[in-house]
């Protein structure tokens, strides 16, 4: 293992389950210190990829290197830690007992009190895990992952099933953990999380990387604006013929026009038709996401 090696290096990663190809020749390289969102719809192969990355599943083809070595080696030396989507906590232990016990599975860790504090669960240290909310349990998993002070932190859909407040608290805890040089890879299907937290977004669909870049770059991939208006019986052909228009969509009485020149569309709608309630919005990451992963 050398420190000049990429934190994560996945090459030609493939995994099939019977007739289903979950991960299909996926390549991904992450440099130390990057915060990367692994974004894709449910069933895109995110969790399978994360499992192979951590050595929990064996690829049918391709290789996984973490810091130039085997995943098992990185786990054994506490260089990688993960917060998994599902799994394992013992309900009959308290929060503090869970952290203390796990700390003994490493040769050396950060102090238990410190990780409880950083995960925002110091106040519930004596609570039984079974009595914790989903969000609190997730922050406990995060506390466990902080113990070895890992160089790479992997989070697999960490906020699935949390309410809005739980998600906010969780990401606050992650943000507060600002050790420089820590590489973070998180899988999510929440676009706002990828947008707000990642430096880089890797879009995955059907087990392949379909886009990879900064948040701004990904947004640009689906640049343009959406003009929306209320217009029963809109003439779709006329709208589609306007310069810059990419697509026209009718939803009930509403018409949505995706365009590179919103002024032209708005002027047309307001002067040539009886359209009302005209709205112009920038395409956001969600649109990019839908375009690229549809």
């Amino acid at each position, binding site marked *: 293992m050398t*420190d000049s090696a990429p934190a994560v290096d996945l090459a030609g990663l493939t995994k099939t389950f019977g007739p289903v190809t979950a991960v299909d020749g996926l390549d991904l390289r992450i440099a130390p210190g990057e915060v990367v969102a692994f974004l894709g719809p449910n069933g895109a192969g995110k969790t399978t990829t994360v499992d192979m990355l*951590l*050595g*929990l*599943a*064996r690829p049918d083809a391709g290789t996984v290197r973490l810091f130039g070595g085997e995943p098992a080696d990185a*786990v*054994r*030396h*506490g*260089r*990688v*830690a*993960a917060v*998994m989507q*599902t*799994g*394992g*906590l*013992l*309900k*009959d*232990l308290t929060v503090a*007992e869970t952290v*203390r*016990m*796990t700390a*003994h*599975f*490493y*040769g*050396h860790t950060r102090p238990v009190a410190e990780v409880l504090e950083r995960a925002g669960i110091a106040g519930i240290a004596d609570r039984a895990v079974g009595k914790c909310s989903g969000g609190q349990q997730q922050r406990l*998993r995060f506390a*466990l992952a902080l113990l*070895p*002070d890992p160089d790479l932190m992997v989070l697999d859909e960490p906020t699935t099933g949390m309410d809005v407040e739980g998600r906010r608290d969780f990401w606050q805890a992650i*943000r*507060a953990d*600002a*050790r*420089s*040089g820590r590489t973070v890879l998180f899988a999510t299907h929440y676009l706002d999380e990828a947008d707000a937290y990642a430096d880089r977004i890797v879009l995955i669909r059907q087990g392949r990387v379909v886009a990879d870049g900064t948040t701004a770059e990904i947004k640009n991939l689906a640049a343009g604006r959406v003009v929306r208006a209320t217009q029963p019986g809109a003439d779709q052909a006329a709208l589609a013929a306007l310069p810059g228009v990419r697509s026209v969509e009718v939803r009930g009485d509403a018409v949505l026009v995706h365009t590179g020149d919103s002024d032209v569309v708005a002027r047309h709608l307001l002067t040539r038709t009886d359209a009302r309630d005209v709205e112009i919005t920038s395409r956001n990451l969600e649109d990019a996401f839908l375009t690229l992963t549809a």
Partner: protein
Amino acid sequence: MTATTSSTTTRAVDRRPPMLGGFCAPVLAIEIRRVLRNRRTLLFILVMPAVFFLLFGLPTRGENLDNGLPVTGWIMISLAVYAAMVATTSAGAAVATERALGWSRQLRLTPLRPAAYVATKVATAMVLGLLGVLVEFAVGAASGVRLPAHVWVESGLTAWVGALVFAAFGLFVGYLAPAENVMQFVGPALAILAMLGGLFVPLELLPDVMRQIAKFTPVYGVGQLARAPLTGTGVDWAAVANVTAWTVFFGLGAARLFRRDTTRV
């Protein structure tokens, strides 16, 4: 992202794996406290065997075995074996719960060695088994059972060490069936095995066919050996063979399933 502090910029993190693969006393202590917090488990491994003694042992007060030692001693030792086997089985079978909950998967993301995990389970089982024997003996002594000192020690140690068979049995079941409520099925099975092993009634009271079959069931050997110091029959080699065979069977079975579980990727 906020500013970094000096401690966060240093890269000198001690990354040596844990001693003994992560097997250590503090984890054992947490495991034991966990079990002792579980009222249901306590009921089965400590309270029930003691109550059995009060119900079935005390009425025989005053009766003696052929060698003049009290029948209550015979029943107490049998129930101590029962307490120990229930304790070690349930501690071993806890891996079923932990696999069902996904805790085993969580552990695979730590440097804890699988062998250290199993060693912790076996050690926990043996501490609980000892507790089961001690509680049963304490209840017996408080109820007036009087035996020669060597019988207390030899029978107690045999009941305890013999329960290792059932720690292996528990692990075997735990790796066979990843279910949270596995003890609900194993508990009744243990009661039947204990019956066949002659812990609840002397085998002499069973029909001959049953008695012959019983000699090959896994509780028989431990029960015979644990009571040997009391009955003065000496070491019964058939019983030794029984214990050895079942320990090897469950031990190898558990080891095999354990390997399948840890290499499954």
